[in-house]
């Protein structure tokens, strides 16, 4: 009888779990489709365009041609080794899905696969989070966590349909790797540790944030050792995982030998060595006398520890092991990037997080997450130490950089799921505890062997009943309030996804006074003009933000793009944009530029244009050419950047100013505005009559958003104005020599 009811309960539970996870997948997929419904199925923003172009190249030419691809149409004179500088996981995943569908005769264009990849993987992330939380706490908490992460705005922001970026698949790989690690730690089996290493390999191929995994797992192992929770399971799982994971991660060409040569991977190696020593200690402890043990290990350990530190610093000093790279060092020393690496500081995603972002992206889960964390600390065991470390480190990193809110979101969803599940378990189940204790007592009558255990269980149940002396009314009210919080979370998540995170950034939308929708498609208009009206090998100079879009949509060679791997090249472009026309013309001739593209938002009030980014161009240029470009030259008298009345002479003559405001002085943005009123900045521009000597205007889009200029090919001999030639010649003889005298100009 009991087996029948238990099996039907198991059947019903499994069915319910499958249905809930399938619905979570469907909801996660559907809530990411706002941009597709409103606009069209298009790749968004900037970075995804490069990923799409790389995937397209791979689908057309095959995987090995992609791995060996040298792109000469990016970073113009230098080119880019794409095969060695890209994480191929994203392209391989889309290519694989495309190939499977093709072989089933279900032909889909690769663009559709790329656009819809991230929503599909959000459902898989929900399932991986369910598995992780089931290992950490219980299946009920797992279902809560899966539903949270399916719609949480912190994750949705980077995985809407059309956002074809590494994070879309990397968060799935992260959660799955963590689930396999926790499982391998719990079972201590080599099979699970090997599966964890394979999943880690997928994560390494997908995203540069794999460094987080390879530092968190050693930190977990170290914490367990320090807490005295060492066990053979930890030894087996960590050593198997570390060896396989390091070898596998070196198979990705971009990672190469970094796992043995950079400081970011050294903690994993250090913990590996430490674990061998600790295992040896535990093995020897029962087999030798205490005094031998103390001298051997305490002395030996200190000597080895000192030796390890000395060797590490010697390797760093000798250059064999690279110190922390700039990107990761700036996470610890937050003021470092602004002074030394302005490119990292200029990205808006790298700014510190405001508290508003925490609420906006996490809503109620940010408030309940400390509850889950507290219960994990209270009922600690080996795997809950892991989630505690993950949560604490993720909170620190999310506070340093807005972009890392993404790594905090899974931790918050898991712990909030634990918090909600524990609360509901305590507050909803009061009749069932009495039933369970009565069924336990019927068990004791059947099997006398388990008498002692049953008595312990009964006394614990009675003690539990006395502890949780919260009345039934309070429980009901609190349960209802929590359900209302969950409903509000769903409403907030959908609202945020719909309004804030579903903009393709390639088209701009605004509404008129009577509610009509105006679509401003200037970007695509300009890129299409470039594609149709310029030579196939024309070089386009623009600021690095737009490089990927130009390469993807206009299919032209660019000078600098979002990869930002060569700071000096970007500084050259910045110097060209900030110098006056003749100096800029020299740089452009050296770099063989044909067209220049600027974004200008003054007519429609678009605030992401190049004049607003100009201060970063100046700063980056100053970093490389401090004698030619000085930031103070561009300030007004009161020390701020302005293109209006008080603008400095250098500012009024620089190439960026001229290109943005050419012919703008004659336009009026509204009926009662003065000519040349810049809507974005809010004032009339400083100099209205602009003449261009070395460049000419090629194309300006409908709303003046994108302006393209062509570099004039000047004749080889420079024309020198006559008035500047100092000529001393013989005066023409009066009337005698009608033919005149040949004058020679003094050299």
């Amino acid at each position: 009888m009991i087996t029948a009811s238990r099996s039907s309960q198991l059947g019903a539970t499994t069915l319910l779990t499958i249905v809930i996870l399938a619905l979570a997948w469907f909801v996660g997929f559907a809530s990411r489709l706002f941009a597709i419904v409103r606009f069209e199925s298009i790749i968004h923003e900037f970075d995804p365009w490069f990923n799409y172009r790389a995937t397209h190249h791979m689908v057309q030419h095959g995987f090995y041609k992609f791995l060996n691809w040298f792109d000469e149409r990016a970073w113009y004179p230098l080119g880019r080794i794409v095969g060695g500088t890209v994480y191929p996981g994203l392209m391989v995943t889309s290519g694989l899905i495309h190939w499977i569908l093709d072989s089933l005769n279900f032909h889909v264009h690769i663009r559709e696969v790329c656009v819809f990849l991230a929503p599909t993987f959000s459902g898989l992330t929900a399932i991986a989070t369910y598995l992780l939380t089931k290992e950490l706490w219980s299946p009920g908490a797992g279902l809560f966590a899966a539903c949270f992460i399916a719609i949480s705005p912190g994750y949705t922001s980077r995985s809407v349909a059309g956002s074809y970026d590494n994070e879309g698949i990397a968060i799935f790989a992260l959660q799955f790797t963590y689930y396999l690690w926790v499982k391998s730690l719990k079972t201590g089996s080599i099979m699970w540790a090997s599966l964890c290493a394979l999943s880690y390999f997928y994560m390494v191929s997908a995203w540069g944030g794999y460094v987080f995994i390879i530092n968190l797992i050693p930190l977990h192992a170290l914490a367990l050792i320090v807490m005295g929770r060492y066990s053979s399971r930890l030894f087996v799982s960590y050593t198997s995982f570390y060896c396989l994971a390091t070898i596998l991660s070196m198979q990705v060409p971009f990672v190469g030998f970094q796992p043995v040569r950079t400081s970011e991977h050294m903690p994993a190696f250090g913990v590996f060595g430490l674990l061998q020593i600790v295992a040896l200690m535990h093995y020897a402890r029962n087999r030798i006398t205490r005094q031998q043990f103390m001298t051997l290990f305490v002395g030996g350990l200190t000597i080895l520890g000192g030796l390890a530190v000395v060797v590490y610093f010697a390797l760093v000093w000798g250059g064999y092991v690279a110190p922390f790279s700039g990107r990761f060092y700036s996470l610890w020393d937050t003021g470092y990037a602004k002074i030394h690496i302005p490119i990292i500081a200029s990205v808006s995603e790298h700014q510190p997080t405001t508290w508003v972002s925490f609420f906006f992206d996490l809503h109620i889960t940010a408030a309940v997450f400390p509850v889950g964390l507290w219960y994990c600390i209270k009922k600690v065991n080996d795997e809950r130490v892991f989630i505690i470390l993950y949560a604490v480190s993720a909170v620190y990193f999310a506070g340093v950089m807005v972009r890392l809110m993404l790594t905090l979101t899974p931790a918050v969803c898991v712990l909030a799921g634990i918090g909600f599940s524990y609360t509901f378990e305590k507050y909803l189940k009061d009749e069932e505890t009495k039933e369970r204790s009565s069924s336990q007592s019927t068990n004791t009558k059947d099997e006398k062997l388990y008498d002692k255990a049953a008595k312990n269980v009964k006394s614990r149940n009675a003690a539990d009943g006395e502890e949780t002396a919260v009345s039934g009314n309070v429980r009901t009210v609190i349960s209802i309030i929590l359900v209302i919080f969950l409903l509000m979370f769903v409403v907030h998540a959908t609202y945020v996804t719909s309004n804030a995170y579903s903009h393709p950034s390639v088209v701009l939308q605004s509404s008129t006074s009577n509610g009509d929708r105006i679509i401003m498609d200037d970007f695509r208009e300009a890129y299409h003009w470039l594609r149709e009206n310029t030579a196939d090998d024309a070089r386009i100079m623009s600021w690095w933000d737009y490089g990927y879009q130009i390469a993807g949509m206009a299919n032209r060679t660019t000078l600098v793009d979002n990869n930002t791997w060569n700071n000096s090249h970007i500084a050259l472009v910045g110097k060209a944009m900030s110098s006056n026309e003749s100096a800029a013309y020299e740089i452009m001739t050296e770099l063989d530029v044909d067209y220049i593209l600027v974004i200008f938002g003054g007519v429609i009030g678009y605030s992401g244009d190049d004049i607003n980014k100009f201060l970063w161009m100046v700063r980056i240029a100053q970093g490389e050419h401090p004698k030619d470009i000085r930031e103070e030259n561009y300030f007004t008298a009161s020390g701020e950047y302005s293109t209006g009345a008080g603008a400095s002479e250098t500012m009024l003559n620089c190439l960026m100013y001229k290109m943005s405001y050419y012919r703008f002085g004659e336009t009026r943005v509204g009926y009662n505005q003065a000519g040349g009123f810049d809507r974005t900045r809010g004032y009339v521009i400083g100099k209205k009559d602009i003449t261009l000597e070395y460049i000419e205007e090629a194309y300006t889009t409908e709303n003046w958003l994108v302006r393209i200029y062509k570099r004039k090919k000047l004749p080889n001999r420079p024309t020198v104005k006559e008035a500047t030639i100092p000529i001393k010649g013989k005066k023409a003889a009066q009337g005698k020599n009608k033919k005149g005298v040949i004058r020679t100009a003094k050299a």
Partner: protein
Amino acid sequence: MDISKMDRYAAPVHFSSLPLLATVLCGVGLLLLAAFTMLQVTSTKYNRNVFKELFIAATSSIFLGFGSVFLLLWVGIYV
């Protein structure tokens, strides 16, 4: 190849019955799928019957197959 001389194409299933057909067929298919899942999860090595499993799986796949075709037609993908 004059279009005006050709008969207008009449589908074997009437257009207005597509939603009902799609919902019913998919619904029955999903119910049978759920029954099959429960059967797999709760049966042991000793009390399983291959013919019962095959029957439920086959009928479920037939229903789901036809249901998905009608679903595609209803949505507008004229396969």
